[in-house]
C-alpha cells in the first residue's frame, strides 16, 4: 500500500513541481543573508501554540515533523519519517524515523519525543489551538477531558518507531502529521524554558533561532546539523518586526529589505506592478483562501432559502475584486480553485439584479427588508462591506454596516441569532492543510453550529454531515480520487442551500528584492506561506 502511495505522491509531486522549472534552471546557490519585514510582532515560536500566518513559516523551519510537503506544492512527503506503512483498515500508521537526527541542543531525536510533542499539543494545559486536529488518535477524549496527560493511541516500541492507533479512519491523517502542531520538541527544553518555550525554541529544523530582541528583530541561522544535506540555501534570515508596509516597501526599493512579508499596500500596488522592475519584485499567486458573506440561517428572513439564493445573485463580485486592485478572483463555491475537489464546471449564482429582485418577491419580500452586516474594521474590509451594502440596496435590502474589532465580530458570529450577515474579510478561511475536509467541519458542519463555534451561518445539514464523515473515512490512497470527488460534490450541493455567498478567492502578494531567487510558489507556498528552506539568493 505504501509503495502505491509513494508512486502516486511522486507523480503528483512531479506534476506540481512543474512550475518550479525556473528554479531548476537557475540551480539554487548556497549562502547569503536576507532581511524580511513584518508589521506585527511575532507572538510565539512554540509550535503547539503559534497559529498566525506570520509565525507559521518560521515554526515550519525551526522544527521537523514526521511528514512535510514538497516545496511549493500541497503534496505530503515523509520528512522525519524515513518510511511508513498504513494498515489495510486505515486505523494503524507505523513510522520509522531517520536515525541521527539531532535537536539544536545536541540531543538525538527519538520516538518518544514524537509522542511527547503530540500529547503536549493536545493537553488542555498547553492551551494550544491545534488540539482538535488530533481527534482521530485513540485516547484523545481522555486527554482533552483531563483524565490523563498521555494518548493511549501512540506507541513507541523502540527509539525509531512510532505507531499511531486511530479510533476512526482519517484520510487527512498524513496532513495532520505535517502541520505545525505536530512539530517535534524535546521535553527537557520545554521544561527548562518554564512556560517560555515560545521565546526559547529548540527544534531539529532547517534553522535555529540565534537572537530575539523583543519588538525589534529575530535572527535565524542555518542549522548546520540539519539531517538533509544541502538544505536550506540561505545562511540566515533576519526578521524585522513593527515595519509599516509602506516603509518596508520603500526600504525594499532601496535594497535594504529582501522580502516585504506584508506585501504591497493596495494604494501602491499598481505603481509597483507597472514599474520597470515590478514584474520581478511582485510575487502574486493564488492561495487556499475564500472570502464570503455568511448568512445566518437561524435569523429571519435568512431562514428562507429563496432569500439566501436571491442575495447570492445580488452581489457584484467583479466590483469587489476591483476594490482590491484585482488581487482576487470572483468565487462561486466554498472551495478555492487550488483545493482538490474544486469544481471548475460549477457556475454557482450569476450576478443578476433582476432575478434577485424577482426571487426576493417570490420569497415574500418585494420591497426588500432591513438587516445588519458585520465586518472587521481594518482596511479594506469596511470598504468592501460598503460595496456589499450598495449591492444589497440595489435589490431593496437596507443593510446597516457594523464594522468592529475582529474579536467582537467573532463573538457576534458565535452567538446564536446575533449577526444576520458577516463579511468574512480579515477572518476568512485559509486552509490549515490542503484538503477539502478542512473547509467543512468547523465552518459548515453541524459540529461548528454551536455557541462559540465558527459556523456563523448556523447551518446544519445532517445528510451532508453523514457524507462528510463517509468521505473522510476513505483513507485508502486508492480511493483518493473518489474521495476528492465526494468532497467536491458536498461543497457544490451546499450551494443549493446557499448558507454563504462566496465572494472572492483572494490572491496573496509578496514583494521581494531583485537578488532573491526561486520560483514564485515558494514565496506563496500553499502550506508554508514563505518557504525559507527553499528560497535562495542569486549570487
Amino acid at each position, binding site marked *: 500500500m505504501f509503495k502505491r502511495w509513494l508512486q502516486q505522491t511522486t507523480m503528483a509531486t512531479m506534476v506540481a513541481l512543474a512550475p518550479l522549472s525556473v528554479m531548476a534552471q537557475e540551480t539554487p546557490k548556497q549562502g547569503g543573508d536576507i532581511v524580511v519585514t513584518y508589521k506585527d510582532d511575532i507572538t*510565539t515560536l512554540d509550535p503547539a501554540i503559534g497559529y498566525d500566518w506570520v509565525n507559521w513559516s518560521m515554526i515550519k523551519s525551526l522544527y521537523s515533523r514526521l511528514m512535510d510537503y514538497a516545496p511549493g506544492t500541497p503534496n505530503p512527503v515523509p520528512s522525519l519519517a524515513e518510511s511508513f506503512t498504513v494498515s489495510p483498515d486505515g486505523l494503524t500508521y507505523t513510522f520509522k524515523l531517520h536515525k541521527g537526527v539531532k535537536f539544536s541542543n545536541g540531543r538525538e531525536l527519538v520516538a518518544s519525543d514524537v509522542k511527547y510533542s503530540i500529547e503536549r499539543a493536545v493537553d*488542555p494545559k498547553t*492551551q494550544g*489551538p491545534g488540539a482538535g486536529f488530533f481527534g482521530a488518535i485513540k485516547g484523545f477524549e481522555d486527554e*482533552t477531558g483531563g483524565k490523563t496527560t498521555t494518548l493511549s493511541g501512540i506507541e513507541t516500541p523502540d527509539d525509531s518507531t512510532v505507531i499511531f492507533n486511530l479510533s476512526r479512519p482519517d484520510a487527512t491523517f498524513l496532513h495532520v502529521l505535517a502541520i505545525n502542531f505536530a512539530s517535534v520538541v524535546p521535553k527537557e527544553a520545554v521544561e527548562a524554558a518554564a512556560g*517560555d518555550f515560545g521565546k526559547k525554541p529548540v527544534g531539529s529544523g532547517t534553522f535555529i533561532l540565534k537572537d530575539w530582541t523583543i519588538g525589534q528583530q529575530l535572527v535565524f541561522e542555518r542549522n548546520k546539523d540539519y539531517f538533509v544535506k544541502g538544505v536550506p540555501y540561505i545562511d540566515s534570515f533576519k526578521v524585522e518586526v513593527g515595519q*509599516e508596509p509602506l516603509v518596508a516597501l520603500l526600504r525594499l526599493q532601496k535594497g535594504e529589505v529582501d522580502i516585504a512579508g506584508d506585501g504591497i499596500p493596495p494604494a501602491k500596488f499598481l505603481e509597483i506592478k507597472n514599474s520597470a522592475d515590478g514584474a520581478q519584485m511582485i510575487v502574486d499567486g493564488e492561495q487556499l483562501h475564500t472570502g464570503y458573506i455568511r448568512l445566518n440561517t437561524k435569523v429571519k428572513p435568512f431562514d428562507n432559502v429563496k432569500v439566501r439564493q436571491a442575495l447570492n445573485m445580488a452581489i457584484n463580485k467583479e466590483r469587489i475584486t476591483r476594490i482590491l486592485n484585482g488581487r482576487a478572483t470572483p468565487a462561486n463555491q466554498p472551495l478555492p480553485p487550488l483545493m482538490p475537489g474544486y469544481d471548475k464546471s460549477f457556475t454557482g449564482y450569476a450576478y443578476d439584479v433582476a432575478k434577485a429582485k424577482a426571487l426576493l418577491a417570490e420569497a415574500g419580500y418585494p420591497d426588500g427588508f432591513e438587516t445588519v452586516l458585520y465586518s472587521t474594521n481594518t482596511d479594506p474590509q469596511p470598504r468592501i462591506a460598503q460595496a456589499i451594502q450598495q449591492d444589497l440596496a440595489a435589490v431593496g435590502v437596507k443593510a446597516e454596516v457594523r464594522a468592529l474589532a475582529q*474579536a467582537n465580530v467573532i463573538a*457576534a458570529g458565535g452567538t446564536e441569532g446575533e449577526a444576520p450577515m458577516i463579511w468574512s474579510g480579515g477572518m476568512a478561511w485559509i486552509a490549515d492543510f490542503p484538503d477539502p475536509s478542512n473547509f467543512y467541519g468547523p465552518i459548515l458542519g453541524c459540529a461548528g453550529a454551536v455557541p462559540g463555534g465558527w459556523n456563523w451561518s448556523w447551518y446544519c445539514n445532517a445528510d451532508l454531515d453523514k457524507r462528510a464523515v463517509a468521505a473522510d473515512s476513505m483513507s485508502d490512497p486508492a480511493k483518493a480520487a473518489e474521495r476528492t470527488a465526494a468532497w467536491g460534490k458536498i461543497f457544490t450541493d451546499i450551494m443549493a442551500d446557499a448558507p454563504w455567498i462566496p465572494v472572492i478567492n483572494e490572491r496573496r502578494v509578496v514583494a521581494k528584492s531583485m537578488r532573491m531567487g526561486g520560483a514564485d510558489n515558494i514565496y506563496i507556498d500553499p502550506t508554508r506561506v514563505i518557504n525559507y528552506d527553499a528560497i535562495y539568493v542569486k549570487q
Partner: protein
Amino acid sequence: MASLMLRRLAQAALILLGVAAITFVLLYALPADPARMIAGRSATAQTVANIRHELGLDQPLLVQFGTYLGNLLHGNLGRSYAQKTDVWTLIAARLPATLTLMLAGIFVEVVLGLTLGTIAAVRRGGFVDRMVMMASFVGTSAPQFLVALLLLYLLAATLGWFPMSGYGSFSHLVLPAVTLGICGAGWYARMVRSSMIDVLNQDYVRTARAKGLSSKRVILRHALPNAVLPIIAMIGIDIGQFMGGVVVVEAVYGWPGIGQLAWQAIQQVDIPIIMGVTLTSALAIIIGNLLADLVAPVIDPRIRTR
C-alpha cells in the same frame, strides 16, 4: 514637602486602583471571548472550555479581579494569553524605547516651542509673529501620521539623511522625535507667546529696560524664566499625551515601544497585556504630574507660599 509627597503617593495608589478596576470591568464587558480567540477556528467547544478554565475566565468577575490585584501587589502583571510570556517582561523590553522617544520628543517640542513662542512675542503683531502662529496652527492640526510620512519620504527615502526605520542609534531617533516635536511644539509656542506678552508688560520688565539692560538680556534673564512656568505643568500633562501619541509614530518608524505592543494586544483581546500597558501608562501620567508639581515650586517660590 514630605506630607505633600505622601498625600500625592496615596492619591496615586488610589488612582491606579481606580484605573485597574475600570479597565478590568470594561475588558470583562467586551463581547469578545479571549478563550475563543486563543483556541482558534478548528477548536471544539471542549477545548474552548478547557482554555477558559485554565485562564480562570470561568470564575466570577470579583474573584478574577481579586486574583489580579493580589498578583499586582506582588509585582506580577500576569501572563500574556497569546504569547504565553510574562507581561512585565514584554513591557520592560519595550519601555526604554518608548521613554527614549518620549523624552526626545518633549525635548524637541520644548526647544521649538520656546524659541518660536519667544520670537513671536517679541515681534508681536508683525510678519514673523503671524508666520509663527500659522506654523504652530499647522503643526498642531496636522495628523502625526502625515507628518511622519512626509519627513520619512523627504529626509530618509529621498535625501537618505536618516534611516527609514529601526532603533538603536541617535540617527534612528531623530525623525521620530522631530515628528513628535513638530506636532507638539505649536501648543508650546502659543502658550509661551501669550505668557511672554503678559510678562513683558510687567513692571519689573519695564524697570529692567529702564535700567538700560540690553533687550536680549531682559528677555532671556528676566522675562523668559517667568514665562516658562506654565510650560512645566504642560510637560507633566504631555507625558500622558505622549504615551498615547507615540503609537502612531512608533508604527510608522518601526519603533519598538509599548504602543505597538498595546495595538497588537487589542487585536488579540490579550487582556493581561492591555491591563499592563494601561497601568504602566497611568503610572507614567501620575509620575509626570507629580514631577510637575514638585518642580513648579522650585522655579516659582510664589507657589510654595500658597
